[in-house]
């Protein structure tokens, strides 16, 4: 009588995978978030190599070609556009009201938006995680005090504060007479097209939510056995925080930060829209939209190009954040 053969050994023993490997495999299975990630990577590459890809410089003007429209865009324009529009073949997406190439400006604008997304989220992640972890780990009076401060700041109207800070920074940039470190900072800010202070203003404001999440996470882990074990073998507080707590709490923080990125991009676009963003002629999608809105009736294409790119980018970040959340915390998926 034939004995049923035992399955091969390797099918019984499942390959051990780390938490992050598991998460990565789950992430790759999510088609929408993979597509979004690819879109973001392509956009990032386009932004990095904007100086190679862009046919013109972002500030290069040809006033004889202002508001030029390529032929394929004519259907977007009003019906009588053929009477007033200047048809061009030199500008693939047309030229703006100052005769600057829209494609080149959109590419350079991606630099602003993406570097903003990266730097603002890094700043707020860094400050927020540090603050929240210390607060939650210390507990007691220190925790109370630190959270009181957070609650206090939470009652401030954020966007209003950002507007005020940005007004202040911009006026400082215009006024000369700063010496020493201040002058260096201002020169650096000018070289970045006014982005440095924008980073500071946004980063300083947005860490608060991150700090709350980090603290909550630390509170839920710091009584766990593995932390107690680390204490028992004599690990120092900083070692426990860095080696034992951070790897466990970083997942939800990254997810929250990814989902916050569209907010940063919006804020940058919004500030540029009301004239408090990057300095002209540095292009940003917000500035391009705000400059083109007055001519919306005649040249809607000048609004639509940056508007669609802005929306696609935030859409991609939202989908990527959702995918990341499902991957890192499968229990959240419903």
């Amino acid at each position, binding site marked *: 009588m034939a004995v049923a053969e035992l399955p091969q050994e390797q099918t019984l023993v499942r390959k051990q995978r780390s938490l992050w490997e598991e998460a990565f495999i789950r992430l790759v299975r999510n088609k929408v978030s993979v597509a979004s990630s690819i879109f973001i990577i392509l956009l990032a590459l386009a932004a990095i190599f904007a100086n190679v890809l862009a046919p013109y410089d972002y500030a290069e003007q040809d006033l004889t070609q202002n508001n030029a429209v390529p032929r394929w865009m004519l259907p977007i324009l009003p019906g009588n556009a053929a009477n007033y529009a200047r048809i061009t073949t030199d500008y693939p997406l047309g030229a703006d009201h100052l005769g600057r190439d829209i494609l080149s400006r959109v590419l350079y604008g991606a630099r602003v938006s993406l570097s903003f997304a990266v730097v603002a989220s890094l700043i707020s992640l860094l400050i927020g995680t540090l603050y929240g972890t210390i607060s939650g780990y210390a507990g007691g009076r220190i925790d109370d005090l630190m959270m009181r401060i957070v609650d206090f700041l939470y009652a401030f*109207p954020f966007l209003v504060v950002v507007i005020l800070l940005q007004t202040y920074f911009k006026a400082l940039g215009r006024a000369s007479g700063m010496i020493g470190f201040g002058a260096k900072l201002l020169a650096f800010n000018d070289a970045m097209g006014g982005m440095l202070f924008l980073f500071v203003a946004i980063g300083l404001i947005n860490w608060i939510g991150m700090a709350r999440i980090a603290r909550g996470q630390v509170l839920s882990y710091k009584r766990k056995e593995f932390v107690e074990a680390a204490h028992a073998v004599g690990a120092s507080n900083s070692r426990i925080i860095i080696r034992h707590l951070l790897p466990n709490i970083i997942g939800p923080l990254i997810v929250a930060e990814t989902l916050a990125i569209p907010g940063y991009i919006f804020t940058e676009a919004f500030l540029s829209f009301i004239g408090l963003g990057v300095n002209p002629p540095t292009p940003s999608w917000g500035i391009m*939209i705000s400059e083109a809105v007055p001519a*919306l009736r005649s040249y809607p294409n000048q609004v639509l190009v940056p508007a669609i790119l802005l929306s696609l980018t935030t859409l991609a970040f939202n989908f990527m954040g959702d995918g990341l959340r499902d991957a890192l915390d499968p229990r959240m998926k419903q």
Partner: protein
Amino acid sequence: MTRYIIRRILGFIPVLIAIALFTFVLMRAIPGGPFDFAGDKSLPPQVVANIEAKYHLDWPMWKQFLSYMIGDDLLGEEGISRGVLRGDLGPSLRYRSQSVNDIIATTFPTSAQLGFLSLLLALMIGLPAGIIAALNQNTWLDYSSTFGAVLFLSIPNLVLAPILIWIFALKLGWLPVASWGAKPPYVLGFLPRLSQLNWDYVSHALMPVFALGTSSAAGIARLTRASLLQVIREDYIRTARAKGLRERVVVVVHALKNSLIPVVTVLGPAFAGLVTGTFVVEQIFGINGMGKHFVQSVGNRDYQVITGVTLVYGVILVIANLLVDITYAWLDPRIRYD
């Protein structure tokens, strides 16, 4: 509960004073003042000095702030303001015939209408969309509602507003481009009186309210769906079904009320988003509201208007947060404040 509310309101006072102080000092630290230009020309320095003296801008900062808070007469000086604590936000430095109180009184009702109607729209679209998605999980209804939510979350109002204008006003010609609230029918300061509601009002309001409300609607829809899905798996829902209750009763009475708690949590921040979103929407649609005025005043260095309007925003935010916390206690009797 009453004691809790009183304690919270007392707790707001330092926050509001800090907001006032922060705005006040930061604005005055900015290079460039409100009287640098009259029209296109710059004024002679003596004239500027005289005007600044009139508005006490030559005083030391602490004295200026003190006079701003408690009024000039209490300091024994010639008065330009009776002080914030007595409800006087001072004169506008740019529009010299108007006080900040006048400006807020004319612009706030329009902004409040805009914000209130947008919140209403957000709830009216967001809640049903979330509920329908949750009750039909993993059907096409769920997928399309979830996708729509992410889509509208990703379109900022400064993109949505021009696109709406382009489609509905310019291409189709159905709706007017701008100037909502030029002739506002008010009741109680900001709500339109029902007898005055006509197509004219609605057609003007439609696009701004939609442009402002959709992203909040999307956020509410996502959250309602997630929260309702969680609640619907709880034991007490199974119990309710086991008792033989009708499905509608189970969903509305048992599940929905409990699933609303996280939704209420975001209403505070959502409301803040609506309030600040008015900056863009009012600008694009040419609405004479508080947000548009605020952005203008920042450019004009109109210290008093900036500080006054910031304070109004601060008050709105803290009241919204308080209402959220009170709603918690009503939705979840386990939450007690004492």
